[in-house]
Structures are given as C-alpha cells and as structure tokens.
C-alpha cells in the first residue's frame, strides 16, 4: 500500500487521535495500526511550508516598512495608499480562507497586512505617534482572523502584538520596574489559561509560548539586585490583574485535563512567587552590574530569585518535552545561557572572584547544556515512539 505523505505535525495529531480512539474502544489495535500506516511524514512539504511562511513574513514586514517609509503625499494621496493596503489585506484574507493547500502562509500575510491597514489609516489621519492602542487594534484583528479561520499563523501575530501592547502599556503606566515585572508575571496565568482552554488544539500553542516568554521575562528581571525597588506596588491595576489571573485560571481549570492542570499550577505558582518577591524586596541602591555594596537581605533576595528563575527555565523545558514543542526547550536553553552570562558579571561577581567565577559559570553552562540536550533527546524519542 502506498503511504500518503502529510506534515509531521498533522501526523502527530492523527497519531494522538488514533490512540485516543483505541483507548476508548472505538477502534481495535489492528485498525489503529492500519490507520496510522496509511500516512508518513512529509518533510519536503514542511520545508516548502516553512519557506512560504518565511516569504509571507518578509512580504508582510516589507509592506509595514513601506508604510513606515512614508512615501511623499504628492506621489500618492493618503486615501489611495489606504485603499491599496486595504485591497491587499482583503485579497489575502479571502485567499487564506479559501485556499486549502499552503493557506497558513497566506493567513500569516493577511494578519500582517491587517496591521498595515491599521497603521496606514492612523498615518493618513495623523493619529499621534507612539499610540499603543494601534497595536491592540492589530492584535484584536489578528486574533479574530485566527479564530475565524481556525489557524495558528495569525494567532502568533495576535499574541505577539497583544503582549507587545501590554508591555508597552505596563512600561508607560508603571511607576517602577517592580510594576512591570508584576504585570508580566500576572499575564502568565492568563495566557496559560487561554492555552489550556484549547486542550490539544493547535491554537493553544501561541498562547502557551506567550505564557512561557512573559513568565521567564518576569523572573529574569526580578533576579537582578535592585530591580524591584519600589514605593507603592499594590495599585489598582495590580488588583485588576490579580483578579483577571484568578478568574482565567479557575475557568480553565474547570475543564482542564491533568496535564493542563499542571500547566495552570506552574503559571499560577510563578505569579504568586513573583508577587512575594516584589512584596518582600529590600530597598537597595546597588547597581545590577556592581553589587559589591549589596546588603545581606538584598543578596539573599537576589539568590532566591535566581533559584526561581532556574526552576522556571526547567519548568518551561519540561513543558516543551511534555507537549512535544522543541521551541520551548530552545527558549529555556537560550534564557538560561543569557541569565547565567549576565548574572556572572553582576550577582556572582562579588561572591566569587577570578578562577572561582569562571569555574562556577562554566559548570552552570555545561550543566544547562547537558540538561537541555537530555530534554531534546527525550523529546525526539517520544516523537519517534
């Protein structure tokens, strides 16, 4: 029998489904094996899809860059420019919704072009510069497209721009770095809840990746001595964010499986620990990269926060293995290497000098590398089995 080539991700989904049908007794062992044997992974299609997605991303970024270069109004009126971008967006949106083969790159391009429509309209109408709500509007449109077409590609744009808008708003409104760190940490359970609500659906992926990035970023900054100096951190936006995180977590937990429950617990736990780190942070004048005058309390706080970061990175890598997402394992590895390298010039420098510092950093990096390699191998084995 000739096997039908399909993308590895689709084959992975099918294998999971067939296994579920077999467990539920809908199909027998032989039937399950026969269904699986009809298909094989098609790496060439994956490569083509990757190249097309890359091309679509370049095209979309190119159009956005063209809008930002602001061609002279004498050559093309603002209304004409808006019309051209709108027609492109509409065309690619309809094409992405109707073309079945390689529709994902078209939908990715459509999501990027929707941003172009927003920015062209804002430019033509002279909406004041550096207006974060435009990014929120882009995120809203991309997310609508993602759910309208049940496609993960526009959702990636939606989550990235949505998180970008949130961080922008946090930085603009927060009166200290502690507010930004807390905001990022509290976004983690909300994003994780969105991911878990999708169960095994591929639309959960971008939300999950977003949760991992915000969680790691929050603890990354919190571990730098003096980063959490603050006067008044328990403000109204923090109460709102806590309430949102609680509601989202409870709602997702109500219909979650055991694996999803673990994710929610991890994200919620990280938010609670960061909340405590902010609450008990001792005031210090120390420069993050010159910690020679650090008090005992500030040093203990930074060391504990570093341990939390290491635990968070291990958690993200484990999630990557459990959910079979190699990108999360790579994200954890990159975050770990960056953290150890930066902290070796800050937190660890006054504790150890000369050879001792190099030995510690070397040991940490080798240990991280071995852990990540082990995670990757386990992931490969699980995918192959």
């Amino acid at each position: 029998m000739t096997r039908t080539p399909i993308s590895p991700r689709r084959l992975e989904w099918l294998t999971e489904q067939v296994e579920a049908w077999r467990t539920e007794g809908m199909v027998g062992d032989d039937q399950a094996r026969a269904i699986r044997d009809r298909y094989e992974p098609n790496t060439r299609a994956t490569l083509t899809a990757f190249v097309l997605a890359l091309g679509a991303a370049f095209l979309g970024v190119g159009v956005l860059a063209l809008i930002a270069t602001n061609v002279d109004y004498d050559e093309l009126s603002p209304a004409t420019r808006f019309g051209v971008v709108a027609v492109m967006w509409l065309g690619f949106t309809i094409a992405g919704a109707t073309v079945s083969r390689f529709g994902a790159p078209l939908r990715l391009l459509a999501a990027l072009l929707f941003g172009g429509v927003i920015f062209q309209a804002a430019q033509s109408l002279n909406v004041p510069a550096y207006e974060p709500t435009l990014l929120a509007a882009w995120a809203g449109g991309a997310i609508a497209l993602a759910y309208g077409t049940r496609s993960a590609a526009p959702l990636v744009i939606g989550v990235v721009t949505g998180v970008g808008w949130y961080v922008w708003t946090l930085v603009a409104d927060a009166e200290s770095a502690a507010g930004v760190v807390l905001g990022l940490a509290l976004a983690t359970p909300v994003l994780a809840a969105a991911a878990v609500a999708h169960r095994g659906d591929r639309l959960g992926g971008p939300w999950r990746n977003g949760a991992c990035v915000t969680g790691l970023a929050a603890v990354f900054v919190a571990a730098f001595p003096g980063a959490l100096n603050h006067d008044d951190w328990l403000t109204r936006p923090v109460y709102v964010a806590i309430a949102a995180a609680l509601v989202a977590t409870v709602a997702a937990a109500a219909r979650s499986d055991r694996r999803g429950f673990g994710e929610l617990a991890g994200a919620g736990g990280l938010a609670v620990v960061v909340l405590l780190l902010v609450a008990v942070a001792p005031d210090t004048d120390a420069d993050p990269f010159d910690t020679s005058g650090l008090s005992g309390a500030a040093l203990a706080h930074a060391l504990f926060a570093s341990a939390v970061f290491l635990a968070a990175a291990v958690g993200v890598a484990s999630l990557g293995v459990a959910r079979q997402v190699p990108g999360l394992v790579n994200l954890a590895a990159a975050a770990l290497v960056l953290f150890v390298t930066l902290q070796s010039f800050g937190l660890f420098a006054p504790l150890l000098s000369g050879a001792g510092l190099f030995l510690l950093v070397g040991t940490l990096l080798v240990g991280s590398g071995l852990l990540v390699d082990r995670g990757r191998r386990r992931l490969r084995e699980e995918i192959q089995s």
Partner: protein
Amino acid sequence: MKRSVLLALVAQLAIVGMVAAPRLLVRVTGDEYRLRVRPVDPIDPFRGAYVDLAYVGFERPDDAEVEKGRVYVLLRRDGDAWVGSGVVAERPESGPYVACESDGWTAKCGIESWFLSQERAQQVEDELGDGGIARVRIGGSGRAVLVAVE
C-alpha cells in the same frame, strides 16, 4: 466563504472603523481653525517620520495645577490664527476649545504628530523654524484632528 471567516472579517472591519471613525468624522464635519505651531523631528517605528508639533499657548503655565485626565485648552484669536489661552478641567460652556488628555505636566490633544516622508519632514522643520500655522478641525466635543501644516 465560511461564516466564521465572514465574522472575522466583520470584526476586523469594525476594529479599523473604531480606529479611524472618530478622527474621520471630525475631519469631515469639524470646524477649521489655524493654530500657531513650532516643529520638532522624530520617527515612529510603524509609521515613519513625522513632525512633532508644539502648539503655542497649550503649555501648562508654571504656576498652574492641572489634574491628570481629561482637560480642555481654551483658544483665543491672535491675528489671523488662534493660540491656546488656558487649560481648564471642566468643559467650557462655549468654544472654541480643544479636548486633551493631561498627564499632570503636558496636555496631549491628538494633533501633535504630522506624518511626512523623511525628506519632507526635514524640509518642514527648516521651513517652520520660526513657527507656522496648523490647520486643525475641531468637532463639537472638542476632539481635534490635524489636517495640514503651512
């Protein structure tokens, strides 16, 4: 086309409408005023070069206390154009005035950015070194939209 895709398109069109409509409405229906301005020349990462306009008389007076949130800049005639003549927290009973958002220090009125090509922005900055006139349309609620700079 599937119903969910149509719904997504309608949602996207609604978002574009929400972004554009308030300013488009004022641009079409508002009364036009010529305000005195001075330029600065920065860049927005998504929309390119623009001239940052500082409106004469819109600054917070040194001794004035302006609350955060919605404020109104009163306008008074100054020759053939208009300038700001004070910032108040309550909506004035009669106009003309511009509705702005204050952060306690500066009032942002939605008419500060004039988007141009890089070359034109530089030219405009040179031409308006000693100040210029901004054509601004103002709606009934005080919402202002920048139409042109001369």
